[in-house]
């Protein structure tokens, strides 16, 4: 179920996804609601994959178009999709084309480069180091041989979205045939392997210049930003060590302006056509005027949604989201994902592009805010109670977000529900931290005196003063709680900046050693783009310093100071998007009762409100 990760979580902006040792590239056909997935070994970077997916998509769609249109779900169920032969043929064609081009390409590019070098180009190339992003088919060929040390062959699989019917049945047999093909291919290239490998570094240098030639052809100042344009072949990247396809695509998406997107598409097509002669100037002017007419057309009648139609709307939506305090990169990724989902979809009558896009974006946001796992602290505390061990919750976050305040609120809530709480003061750094917690303890005990709870003190503070090791205090607190029979242990830690390496190590140690049941990251709702950085660095620190196979990461988020933002609730989206973990509590004030749980629909409504 690898499709459950990128698509439902709205990370569908890029079209490639890494899962364990495989890289999966997928293509959505929104008109007939199909998904085409190709999987191959991560170490092998096969260049023809994109073209293969497109070809498969076209053939499959044309061949079975009738079945889809007429019979719907039943058609999918009952139809036999005898696509195996077609698929093998397409695969063989794609392999052939990538093989054949390998030797010839180099020579022609030599010629073309020399002829097309202008003064401008010469000046720029001197300062540039050769870019890795290259659409070099031949490099792939040599790479493949290099990686053949890995025994397992790569598998390619195509599957339907809904009821994958016969498509998947063929998967197994396809695999075997694919395996055979692979072996033949490798054997054939064994000899050519060495000689192809050596010119690799040179060609890399050459290829680095190639994109530049095309840019100058467009003479668009924006395009001279090489780091972006070089990612023409999307994830057809190159030396595995250097390139992260997701990141490169992410960069590309950040470029504002519709024209740039078009350029990307046309470059892609030019490449697809496998122009072996001079790299031709990609035609850019495609959608400039079309966009305007598209909007008018979009008002009436059923038409297919194209990228050009959606782009202006998406731009506006993206700016709207950023204005609502969603982190910029997340807004971009979200819009990309929504665009991918809607591309090619048939709109109903009297629905405008704007309304469709808004609807899709709204659904996407609600989807993101839905928790991936159960959010029921009380239930888990009851479980731990049954096993006679305390339920340990750790609060972490940067300075001044409200950890201690919200810790007090949460302990109040727990006491109201009849659980006894031990507060562990592991903030041994900040002046007054322990006293603050002591005051809270006293007030809570005043509110819930032991008499009304059967003689039990509901809240107690475990502290060892200042300057001691936080992890040690936490461990002692937990064993004390176990001995005394406390139900919950709330561990308060010192606030720390995510860049402060020694402090992050200390926090990671505390969490790794004590293995709490729940690790809550406390973040304030006022934070903007910083949220992304904080969460990423916190998670990374926790993962790096843990000895275990599956490190304990952040399990949930507490969103605080929610009352200070009116409807600029974007931080909620940023945080859940980055971690995929749910928002467990929301803090809305400084009294004990100001604790809420997240209501996804209300937050999204506030976000989308003009």
């Amino acid at each position, binding site marked *: 179920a690898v*499709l459950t990760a990128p698509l439902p979580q709205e990370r569908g902006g890029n079209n490639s996804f890494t899962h364990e040792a495989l890289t999966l590239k997928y293509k959505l056909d929104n008109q007939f609601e199909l998904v085409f997935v190709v999987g191959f070994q991560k170490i092998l970077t096969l260049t023809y994959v994109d073209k293969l997916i497109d070809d498969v998509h076209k053939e499959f769609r044309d061949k079975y178009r009738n079945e889809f249109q007429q019979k719907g779900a039943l058609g999918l169920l009952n139809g036999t999709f005898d696509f195996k032969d077609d698929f093998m043929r397409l695969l063989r064609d794609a392999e052939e084309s990538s093989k054949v081009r390998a030797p010839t390409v180099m020579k022609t590019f030599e010629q073309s480069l020399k002829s097309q070098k202008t003064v401008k180009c010469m000046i720029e190339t001197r300062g540039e180091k050769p870019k890795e992003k290259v659409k070099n088919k031949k490099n792939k060929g040599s790479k493949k041989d290099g990686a053949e040390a890995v025994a397992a062959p790569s598998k390619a699989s195509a599957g339907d979205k809904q009821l994958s019917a016969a498509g*998947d049945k063929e998967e197994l047999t396809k695999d075997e045939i694919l395996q055979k093909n692979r072996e033949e291919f490798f054997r054939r290239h064994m000899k050519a392997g060495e000689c192809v490998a050596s010119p690799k570094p040179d060609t890399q240098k050459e290829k680095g210049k190639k994109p530049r030639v095309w840019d100058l052809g467009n003479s668009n100042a924006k395009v001279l930003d090489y780091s972006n344009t070089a990612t023409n072949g999307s994830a057809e990247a190159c030396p595995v060590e250097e390139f992260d396809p997701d990141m490169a695509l992410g960069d590309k998406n950040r470029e504002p302006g519709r024209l740039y997107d078009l350029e990307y598409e046309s470059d892609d097509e030019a490449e697809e056509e496998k122009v072996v002669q001079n790299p031709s100037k990609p035609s850019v002017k495609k959608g400039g005027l079309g966009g305007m007419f598209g909007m008018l057309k979009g008002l009436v009648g059923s038409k297919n949604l194209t990228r050009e139609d959606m782009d202006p709307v998406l731009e506006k939506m993206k700016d709207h989201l950023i204005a609502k305090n969603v982190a910029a990169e997340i807004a971009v990724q979200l819009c990309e994902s929504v665009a991918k989902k809607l591309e090619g979809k048939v709109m109903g009558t009297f629905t405008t592009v704007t309304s469709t896009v808004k609807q899709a974006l709204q659904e996407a946001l609600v989807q993101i805010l839905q928790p991936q796992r159960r959010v029921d602290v009380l239930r888990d505390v009851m479980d731990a109670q049954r096993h006679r061990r305390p339920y340990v919750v750790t609060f972490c976050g940067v300075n001044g977000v409200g950890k201690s305040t919200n810790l007090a609120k949460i302990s109040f809530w727990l006491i109201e529900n009849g659980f006894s709480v031990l507060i562990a003061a592991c903030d041994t750094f900040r002046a007054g931290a322990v006293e603050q917690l002591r005051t809270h303890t006293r007030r809570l005990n005043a509110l819930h005196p032991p008499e009304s709870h059967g003689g039990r003190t509901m809240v107690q503070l475990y502290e060892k003063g200042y300057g001691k090791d936080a992890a040690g205090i936490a461990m002692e607190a937990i064993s004390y709680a176990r001995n005394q029979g406390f139900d919950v242990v709330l561990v308060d830690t010192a606030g720390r900046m995510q860049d402060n390496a020694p402090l992050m190590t200390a926090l990671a140690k505390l969490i790794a050693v004590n293995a709490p049941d729940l690790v809550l990251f406390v973040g304030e709702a006022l934070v903007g783009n910083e949220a992304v950085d904080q969460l990423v660095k916190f998670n990374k620190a926790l993962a790096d310093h843990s000895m275990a196979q599956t490190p304990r990461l952040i399990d949930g988020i507490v969103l605080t100071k929610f009352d200070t933002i009116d409807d600029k609730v974007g931080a909620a989206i940023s945080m859940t998007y980055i971690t995929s973990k749910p928002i467990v509590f929301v803090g809305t004030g400084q009294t004990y009762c100001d604790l*809420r749980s997240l209501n996804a629909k209300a937050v999204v409504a506030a976000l989308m409100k003009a």
Partner: protein
Amino acid sequence: AVLLLGLCDAGKTLLFARLLSGRYRDTQTSITDSSAVYRLSQDKSTNVTLIDLPGHESLRLQFLERFKAAARAIVFVVDSVAFQREVKDVAEFLYQVLVDSTVLRNAPALLIACNKQDVTMAKSAKLIQQQLEKELNTLRVTRSAAPTSLDGSATGGPAQLGKKGKDFDFSQLPMKVEFVECSARGSKGEEGEADLEGLEKWLAKVA
């Protein structure tokens, strides 16, 4: 319409395929709904629309929202083999379905289909019923005690499942609830027939 609900990997899509075509199909995790008209095996003249909804956590509530008003009956598919591990998640989803105001109002007939009975370790329907009742009992308390939602509406909904003061029982619900064991894969492996008799009989009753 009859909705097929359940956690991920419970077997909804395979059940759907089996009911409609009788053949075994390899399925993937659904990311969207599928609906088709089902002709009852006993009485060929009556039709009923079956809607198979995805079980993925991020998608399930969304699709439930869309289709709950049209539901005349709900089949809640439970993976009998993984039940011990997943009992809390199953109960939570079932709870969310049951306290939904539209569902309570329409009170569609509810069938809890304990799927994957062909595997030896599968739990029986009776056991599943008992465990679910216990879990839902606890959930009633914890959910209503959860902090209230941001805009003031309570998380568990104002509805109270079953009778207060007494332990939760499926008979306390306003709708008819039945438990049935079934196996979408069938005991003879992929080529054989699926054991769906109980399910089909119930569908005939409901249609």
